């Protein structure tokens, strides 16, 4: 049975916050002296170097990974300011390895993915690989390529789940933790294996509105033309706002009205937020949109967002129930890692706590740790994984781990 303990602090002082959170977690994990892994999530306003130093002093050689985010959640609530630490102690037969890939931009992202995979595989010979958990530090235009490199080494059947942990206000501001190191322009990962099961669920709750449109010119995440006209026209038409106003406000507005990308063979739309607009009216999106793709404007309400969270939770529980192999003669323990898009946080505003209430209602008594992020990395349909991983915006994703 996995030993799980969570500590939380809302202290303004980074050192005190780290000490308080890790202290709480260690106290709660007293039944077992061995700690195998630490996870840390905190808000951007805290100092990452101070936190890393403090945690490494307390955890010594225990592997630690984590990230900063726009807000965080744990069993106690949703916080725009704070720090939460999860400590895990694994039973016999449950394995995990951590790894890091640095300076991804300088390298080929594909090679970066391969490098991370090699590190993750180290010491995992003849052990069943169950899932990968990744934390990026930016908006991951290269995510697809990076994951391809990862999967080439780990196998396409190997499911990955992760998030981009950059700041909404400042995409260059990011902090990833790898043991005592704080890094940017990288990716840290965990690979879980052995007698451990997982269930993944993700949904966004946005619905298409208006007629389909054809992307007539795009390169990577830059969409220059839709239906043969400057791409900004799509928003001008639907939102009825001037180009100059949209140039200022589209980043915020697109969180409510993202672009929906219909993927052939998939049921669900993949969402793309707009980060910025250039003077020609081209849209810079948070994730790639291929030329020739059919896109729709998407819309949602608070209700559909919350319904999506409920569906994602149900999906994760169902996937966990179907997971193989069934393990353990003793009652296993569970914990959940949640990544919710910060756009959802802005949309739900004061009702964001309802999202946590849904999680707690769906997973009663299960320790929860989560981060509000800028994009999630997961299969498009968690229940029907066929080897393709996408970079999502606006999603609520939950990973339940049992062991």
């Amino acid at each position, binding site marked *: 049975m996995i030993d799980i303990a969570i500590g939380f602090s809302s202290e*303004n002082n980074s050192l005190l916050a780290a000490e308080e959170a890790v202290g709480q977690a260690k106290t709660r994990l007293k039944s077992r002296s061995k700690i195998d892994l630490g996870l840390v999530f905190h808000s951007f*306003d805290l100092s990452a170097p101070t936190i890393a130093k403090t945690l490494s002093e307390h955890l010594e050689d225990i592997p630690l990974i984590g990230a900063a985010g726009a807000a965080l959640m744990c069993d106690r609530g949703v916080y*725009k*300011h704070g720090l939460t630490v999860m400590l895990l102690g694994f039973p016999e037969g449950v394995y995990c390895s951590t790894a890091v890939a640095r300076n991804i931009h300088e390298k080929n992202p594909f090679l970066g993915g391969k490098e991370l995979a090699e590190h993750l595989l180290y010491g995992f010979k003849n052990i069943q690989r169950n899932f990968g958990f990744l934390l990026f530090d930016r908006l991951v235009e290269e995510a697809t390529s990076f994951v391809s490199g990862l999967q080439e080494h780990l196998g396409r059947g190997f499911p990955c789940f992760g998030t981009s942990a950059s700041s909404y*206000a400042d995409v260059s501001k990011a902090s990833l933790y790898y043991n005592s190191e704080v890094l940017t322009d990288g990716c840290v990962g965990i690979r879980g294996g052995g007698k451990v099961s997982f269930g993944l669920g993700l949904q966004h709750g946005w619905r298409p*509105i*208006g*007629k389909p449109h054809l992307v007539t010119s795009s390169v990577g995440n830059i969409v220059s033309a839709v239906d043969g006209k400057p791409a900004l026209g799509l928003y001008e*038409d*639907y*939102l*009825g*706002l001037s180009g100059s106003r949209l140039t*200022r*406000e589209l*980043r*915020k*507005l697109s969180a*409510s*009205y993202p672009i929906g990308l219909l993927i052939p063979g998939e049921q669900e739309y993949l969402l793309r937020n707009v980060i910025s607009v250039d003077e020609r009216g081209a849209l810079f999106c948070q994730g790639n949109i291929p030329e020739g793709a059919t896109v729709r*404007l998407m*819309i949602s309400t608070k209700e559909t967002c919350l319904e999506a969270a409920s569906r994602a939770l149900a999906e994760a529980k169902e996937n966990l129930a179907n997971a193989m192999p069934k393990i353990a003669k003793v009652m296993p323990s569970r914990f959940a890692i949640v990544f919710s898009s910060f756009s959802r946080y802005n949309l739900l*505003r*004061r009702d964001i706590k309802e999202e946590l209430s849904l999680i707690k209602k769906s997973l009663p008594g299960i320790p929860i740790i989560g981060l509000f992020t800028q994009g999630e990395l997961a299969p498009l349909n968690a229940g029907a994984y066929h080897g393709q991983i996408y970079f999502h915006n606006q999603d609520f994703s939950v990973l339940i781990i049992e062991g």
Partner: protein
Amino acid sequence: MFAFNIILAFLGLVAAIVMAFVVMTKENTANTLRNEVSNLRRALDEMDEQAKLVVRTDIELNKAQEELDKKITGLYTLNRLSRSISSTLEESQVFKRIEPAHIEDLGFTKALAFLFSETERKFILRLTLGYIPEETERIKSFMETHREGLAKLLPAEKTLSSLAADEHAFVEAVREAFGVTFFVFAPVLPKEGSPGLFFVGTDKQDTAITEGDEELITIVANHIGQALENARLFEKTWQAHQNLEKRVEERTKELSRVLEEVKKISQRKNDFVSNVSHELRTPLTSIKGYASILLSGKLGVLPEDVYKRLEKINKHSDELVSFVNELLDISRIESGRVDLKLAPYDFKHIVEEVADLLAVQCREKQIELVTAVDQLPEVLADYSQIKRVLINLINNAIKYTTKGSITLRAARHDAEVRIEVQDTGCGIPEQALDKLFVEFYRVDSAVNQEVKGTGLGLALVKHIIEAHHGTIWVKSKVGEGSTFGFTLPVA
């Protein structure tokens, strides 16, 4: 062959007719489909137009919802912030209670607070949130440059924000200097002490502020002003309290010193009175003794005139001895040299004894002496001293009463017995009542010109009663009589 050709032509005609029919039918179908496609396209376009309306309405609703949420969050934040800054009464702590979370919940990312020093004519920075030191220095320089313009906001009680269209140049200058897109400057106006300015701003491009934000920040600034005012008033009150305590302490010391002086002087007076009285008593005893011998005729019969004068000498010697004795008694009681022989006594018995003793004098003046004494518990008293008190009070009543009665009452009140001597005499003027128990005081009245007295009797009575832990009082009205009362503890 001809027939075959005719048949063939006929068949061709039929085929042409069928073909024409088929073509016509197909054309009709195609037209129908074209119409349907056209209809569908039009319907799709119409639905797309409706979608645009839905999206635009949704934007408006979202905007309204966002404003509402912002206001609710703002009010909650205002409540938390007000409670936080009101919970301190130290001026330096008021600004420290404003936290980044408060500013963020108000919808801003940066905050500054300045107090304006009238003497130095400059803004002094008291709060910085969201700025690094280099930025703060730049802002200080801006405040110095625009000092007079910004100071004008204070008496005008004017809030200035990035919404101000008529202050375009200044708004742009603030944007640049403070590194913000939207901002609000609100005056902090406490009734006491320096006023100030509260600044909040955001560097987010897409978080436009509204008039509602401006109003909310003005309210926050008012709360800060109120908190500063409370802190300053408290500081002032505390300082005044400290000064008062210091002065009370100084006065107490001074009074203690004076009291010690008075005690010493009083002791010296008592010693003097005691010594003088002793010295006076010895020659007085001799005078009285020789006068008695001469009056007894043992040294021969005295002429009538000499006898009369000797009698006066003897009488005045008695009065002088009594006066000296009273002085001595007061002196002894004051200096604590008299040990009261306290014991339980039946007070009724003392009353009866005194009544018997003074009955003759009352009869002589035709004054009725009435005793109204309840069944009493025993009192803890020095028998001879209490008897002396009663005699003194009844004697006084006899002296100042020409007709009527003297009533002596005694009754129990809780743990003490209350005794009253009431007469129907001339009464005492109200202004004299306070001084009546002071040594040597005698009421300045026509009656007192005739009634002799030393002014020591009532002073002695007061000393004796207080030595018994009792209290003494007097009530009187001129022409209606007087009542002297005192208490004694129940044994």
